């Protein structure tokens, strides 16, 4: 069902079970952070894993989604689901505009261009009055879901985040296993061939990019509501680097890899936060180790050991 293989179906059930059980064992706010980043990483993985394009500017969509959701929830007092969807719409619109420009080049250039475009968004956020500059948008209310269900208790909003994450996860999985997804993979493997078969590859890439940035915006908007704050950190290029690292560490092009990467990296940051700049050093070192010796990532390695695709 949904294109899951047997092993993937089992892994999915385990993941859902963990999402349900964990908040009684672990700190729910930490888990929500993991889920937001996991969705963000899954969205990024759609581009690098299935279209073969490395976007080094995904923080722009995550951050703008977070700003718009925070601003609308605070100043218009709209409901939680509307704020999150607005965040997603922001990501999608921005993705459409920037993607249209970026897909003109491939490979390394695509990475550099997305990085440059995202830096432009960063400077915009730094100067625009509505973002609050260095302070960001603070004290964002957790407005009630559908206007009725209170989102104030952590456990209430946790279920919202869990549902948002699972819907996003399933959407990506469905897209990747659809005929559309097959064309994306064909483009990744051999773009001239896909063109010669009559596919407008640029259109396919742009649609995939917009879908990816939509989900990145959703993830950003959700994060803004959970933590009640949207700041420049979310649009900074180091955030783009972090999501690359999550996917690389978890396993490029695997379905569960980004989730695992988000979990490991968030846990590591929580643990290392007290050591200041050592977080950066550790992240850099993990980057280098992953590239040099661990290119399949955690989930990729597990899959290779068990001879299954996860």
């Amino acid at each position, binding site marked *: 069902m949904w294109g899951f293989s047997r092993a993937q179906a089992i892994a999915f059930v385990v993941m859902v079970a963990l999402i349900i059980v964990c908040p009684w064992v672990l700190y729910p706010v930490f888990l929500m952070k993991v889920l937001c980043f996991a969705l963000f990483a899954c969205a990024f993985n759609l581009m690098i894993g299935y279209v073969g394009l*490395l976007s080094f500017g995904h923080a722009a969509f995550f951050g703008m989604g977070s700003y718009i959701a925070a601003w609308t929830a605070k100043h218009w007092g709209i409901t939680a689901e509307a704020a999150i969807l607005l965040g997603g719409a922001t990501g999608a619109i921005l993705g459409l505009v920037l993607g249209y*420009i*970026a897909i*003109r*080049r491939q*490979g*390394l*250039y695509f*990475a*550099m*261009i997305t*990085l*440059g*475009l995202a*830096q*432009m968004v960063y*400077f*915009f956020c*730094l*100067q625009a009055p509505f973002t609050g500059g260095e302070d960001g948008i603070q004290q964002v209310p957790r407005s009630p879901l559908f206007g009725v269900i209170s989102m104030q208790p952590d456990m209430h909003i946790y279920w919202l985040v869990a549902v948002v994450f699972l819907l996003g996860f399933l959407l990506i999985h469905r897209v990747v296993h659809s005929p559309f997804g097959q064309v994306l993979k064909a483009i990744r493997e051999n773009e001239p061939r896909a063109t010669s078969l009559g596919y407008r590859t640029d259109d396919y890439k742009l649609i995939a990019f917009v879908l990816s940035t939509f989900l990145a915006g959703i993830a950003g908007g959700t994060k803004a509501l959970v933590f009640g704050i949207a700041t420049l950190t979310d649009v900074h*290029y180091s955030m783009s*680097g972090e999501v*690359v690292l999550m996917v*690389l560490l978890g396993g490029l092009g695997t379905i569960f890899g980004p989730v695992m990467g988000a979990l490991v990296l968030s846990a590591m940051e929580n643990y290392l936060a007290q050591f*200041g*700049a*050592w*977080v*950066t*050093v550790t*992240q*850099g*070192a*993990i*980057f*280098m180790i*992953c*590239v*040099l010796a661990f*290119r399949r990532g955690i989930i990729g390695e597990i899959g290779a050991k068990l001879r299954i695709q996860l």
Partner: protein
Amino acid sequence: MITIFGIPGPLLFGQLLLGLINGAFYAMLSLGLAIIFGMLNIINFAHGALFMMGAFVAWMLLNYLGIGYFPALILAPVIVGIFGLICEKTIISPLYKLDHLYGLLLTFGMALVIEGLFRNAYGSSGMPYRIPDVFQGATDLGFMFLPNYRGWVVIAALIVCLATWAIIEKTFIGARLRAATENAPLVQAFGVNVPRLITLTYGAGVALAAFAGVLAAPIYSVNPNMGSNFIITVFAVVVIGGMGSILGSIVTGFALGVIEGLTKVFYPQGSATVIFLVMVIVLIVRPRGLFGKAA
């Protein structure tokens, strides 16, 4: 006082000079990136970190060993260049057979490690580096005062850029380099040690970044973030210019610096984004870049 377009002359020329100086750094850094890309086929994300390292090595030479600016101008690029050679030999060279994106990711990791280590050791606030005595003061050019050191930076950068161009285009070693960029296996078949050529190219590109770092040390404060602020803009410069031509990189670097300087005069809010805006326009009009070869 002279005014041009309603702008006081000294302000306009002052910003133009600042633009030229930024342009000098863009030119030197994008030149290094282009040379490295030509031979190694990787985008060296660590370029900014190595630029910063050049400035720091100069600062350390002065404060720990009492070695002044001019020896540092030679020594720092050599030291950082050797560091680059070691990095290429040990960690970058295994990646040549893989997708080029892995090179980008690895050098991004390198940049994080280098910057993080310096931030741990020296903190994020900058440290001053005194302008050498020879270049203290300013010269009256009639229409503006030119701080001597800034004039020197522009001239030194121009000389180094043109020298690099001359070495690549006019010398025997440059001819080998260009040949190897075009077709490495063939050049190797003629008996040229291509892997060593690649290593040396990386070292030279890195040394160029370090040289720029030393030049930058007295202008910007020496701090661990100085490189990452530059590198993303330099990427945009590289996209605008295309990486096909050495002279193209130099011209694009200086020109964009000047455009940035002019924006500071006429629309200060836009000065941080103008280079990226130029990148967008170039991508729409001419995706391969101003001097780029057709894909």
